[in-house]
């Protein structure tokens, strides 16, 4: 019995070990491990596509004593996105880190981060989630500080501490649940959980801890400096994947495990925080002077969009409408993930070429790099939510649901957020239009520009036009 779920975690892990042990070959080994890991993830994806969901009991011990890995449509979709982004980031990194030394530090940590991410998405055990969260947080902070500049190290030290605070808070929630219910398995817990002070407190504690890690407004303060000062491939992974991973857990808890505990008031509060994140994040992105800071603030806003779904999902009874809304949420998360990865990778190229990333002074540089400017434009399209990107469809369904459930006020938030997003995206793009200089060719460095462009393109064209297959992937997983 070959267990694709365990492989999805252990392949990048082994890659990380090899890259640690043999630093001279770190890049080659890392790329090789990335390829194998992508195959493992594809295997999981095929399994979920055919079976609906996969479960494997590790160590031969069934839950609650053992730990299980579970892949349903949601985790499979996010795994696939992580694999795509990771592949893009990996190829990009070979062109980005010119010194072997930097690459030798990047690869082991990066592969461990990927392993943690896959582990988190597949985890079905509360304490195991804690361990993956810590692995994720440590590798992310270490990677973020890789440039070694004072800004990067201090921002990521703050990120590390905030992450630890979040983990501790989360762990207290886990301890309460184990005290009351004697199990750590998500599925078993969902079966026995009852509304009451313990469940409510555990949910609040865990959500607060995860919200810190997901940079949910008003706990987002650490994100912009940490993401803006990291090396570009790391920023891409942090913004696209690490933050989303924490949000994924919030989603799991609120929609699956704690569904009977969540009240309309609590869900509306999440929506409200999301609304504030959208407005605040977009506004700060608009006012940012640096491109990477803009992208980082836009991440704060995008997490807000995902939160808007929670009150609407909570209000809907199980059925096809709720399923549609749920898939729309996933679609939105995937689109943002790919788009934000593309945007950060492109921003890194602009920064490297110009020596800075001040938006007001980007004129000639951006113009001279058509492929990179295109990447920013495509990613921007997805961030605004314009067609044909996946987030357009997500937004359409979100707004439909807001109208149908009578919670029309969210629409106003979405509209304002959309216009603000358009303003900040086009503020950057307008720098790319001059008659001179005329770019020599479309692509200047294929190894870095093409992965960025493909990621952004995937967020716009693939997720937009092939969104229907996501319904099939998740529809089976959700057992609609």
């Amino acid at each position, binding site marked *: 019995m070959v267990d694709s779920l365990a492989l999805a975690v252990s392949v990048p892990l082994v890659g990380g070990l090899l890259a640690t042990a043999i630093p001279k070959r770190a890049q080659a080994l890392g790329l090789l491990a990335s390829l194998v890991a992508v195959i493992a993830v594809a295997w999981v994806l095929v399994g979920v596509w055919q079976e609906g969901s996969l479960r494997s009991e590790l160590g031969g011990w069934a839950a609650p004593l053992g730990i299980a890995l579970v892949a349903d449509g949601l985790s499979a979709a996010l795994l696939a996105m992580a694999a795509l982004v990771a592949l893009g980031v990996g190829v990009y990194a070979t062109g980005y880190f010119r010194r072997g030394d930097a690459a030798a530090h990047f690869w082991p940590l990066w592969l461990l981060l990927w392993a943690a991410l896959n582990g988190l998405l597949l985890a079905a055990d509360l304490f195991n989630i804690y361990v993956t969260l810590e692995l994720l947080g440590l590798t992310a902070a270490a990677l973020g500080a890789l440039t070694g500049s004072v800004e990067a190290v201090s921002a990521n*030290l703050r990120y590390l*501490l905030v992450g630890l605070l979040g983990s501790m808070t989360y762990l207290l929630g886990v301890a309460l649940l184990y005290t009351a219910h004697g199990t750590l398995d998500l599925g078993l817990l969902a079966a026995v959980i009852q509304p009451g002070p313990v469940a409510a407190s555990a949910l609040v504690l865990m959500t607060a801890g995860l919200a810190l890690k997901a940079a949910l407004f008003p706990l987002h303060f650490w994100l912009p400096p940490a993401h803006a000062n990291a090396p570009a491939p790391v920023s891409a992974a942090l913004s696209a994947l690490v933050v989303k991973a924490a949000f994924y857990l919030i989603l799991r808890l609120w929609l699956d495990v704690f569904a009977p505990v969540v009240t309309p008031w609590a869900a509306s509060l999440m929506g409200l925080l999301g609304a504030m994140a959208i407005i605040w994040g977009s506004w700060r992105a608009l006012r940012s002077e640096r491109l990477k800071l803009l992208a980082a603030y836009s991440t704060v806003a995008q997490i807000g969009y995902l939160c808007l779904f929670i009150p609407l999902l909570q209000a809907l009874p199980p059925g096809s409408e709720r399923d549609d809304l749920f898939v729309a949420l996933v679609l939105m998360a995937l689109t943002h993930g790919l788009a934000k990865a593309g945007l950060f990778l492109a921003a890194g190229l602009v920064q490297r070429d110009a020596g800075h990333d001040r938006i007001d002074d980007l004129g000639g540089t951006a113009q001279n790099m058509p492929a990179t400017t295109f990447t920013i434009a495509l990613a921007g399209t997805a961030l605004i939510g314009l067609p044909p990107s996946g987030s357009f469809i997500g937004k359409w369904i979100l707004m439909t649901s807001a109208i149908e459930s009578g919670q029309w006020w969210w629409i106003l938030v979405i509209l304002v957020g959309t216009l603000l997003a358009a303003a900040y995206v086009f503020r950057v793009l307008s720098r790319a239009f001059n008659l001179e200089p005329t770019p020599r060719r479309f692509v200047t460095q294929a190894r870095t520009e093409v992965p960025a462009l493909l990621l952004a393109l995937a967020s716009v064209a693939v997720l937009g036009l092939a969104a229907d297959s996501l319904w099939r992937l998740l529809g089976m997983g959700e057992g609609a």
Partner: protein
Amino acid sequence: MAQLLYGGAGVVLFALGLWAFLVYTPLLRKLIALNIMGSGVFHLLIAIAERGELPPDPVPHALVLTGIVVAVSATALALAMGRRLEEDEGGR
């Protein structure tokens, strides 16, 4: 009764650590605070594992063991980052 007494102590430790984390700015103090917060949670887990006459529940023990190692790893990384900052500031 022991469960409640020790578990309550765990919660108190958690709260004390949280308070100190929020109130102090120096890195080392924040780390002490975080470690005491963590110890509080671990303490709660150890407390509920104790079952009087019966042998204690080994699962929380194992969780805490894992937690201790994770906490010390994070502390070590944070201290190294702090030292890097000190060196940079000292070099200016």
